[in-house]
């Protein structure tokens, strides 16, 4: 998911010029839109899992195999 601004004079997807939107664009489609000047990237976010921001369901142990009978 990245944050974009519509920079051209034409709407991009459902977004009017000058507005911002969050989306996960296909990399090649994004490159073409950037090259044409339709959009600019304001913020590139990379999905990450921070230590301590998650936990397993009750009874699950990280070393247990899912296939274990």
């Amino acid at each position, binding site marked *: 998911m990245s944050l974009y601004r519509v920079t*051209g*004079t*034409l*709407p*991009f*997807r459902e977004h009017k010029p000058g507005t911002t939107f969050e989306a996960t*664009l296909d990399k*090649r*489609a994004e490159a*073409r*839109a950037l090259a*044409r*000047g*339709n959009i600019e990237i304001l913020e590139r976010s990379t999905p990450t899992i921070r230590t301590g921001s998650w936990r397993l369901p009750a009874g699950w142990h990280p070393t247990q195999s899912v296939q274990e009978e």
Partner: protein
Amino acid sequence: MAKRIALKDKIEVDNVDLSTFARSVSFSSEHAQVDVSGFNATGANEFLAGQTTQSVTVEFFGSYGSGEVHHTVYPLHRDRTIFTFKWRPDQTAGVSASNPELSGLVQALTYAPGATRGDAETFSVTFSAADETGLVFSDT
């Protein structure tokens, strides 16, 4: 269902809204008619539906500004790119059963701009369906 005057159609090519540069749109979806006729008493033919060929033709006004028709469509044609295409009757309303959207992955196999002295420059671009999903109408 009410009849409609086509005025507010939305045409989106590779995510760019080119509606203001388009003045007509025509979708075609055709199944090949495969003859599977055998000998029979009446001599009538029997057919099955075969391969499906789909395309949508848009008549654009010639426009050569940054991000406009030529700047958008020509590189897609030149580079044999597969990209998204969308059309729905009313750009001011969301997709619904009464405002269905045609969409799919297409290629611009032909690109043939031209001009006549004194006339508004217009030309047609045919977008051909490019994958097994084809061009489909959805109402959600």
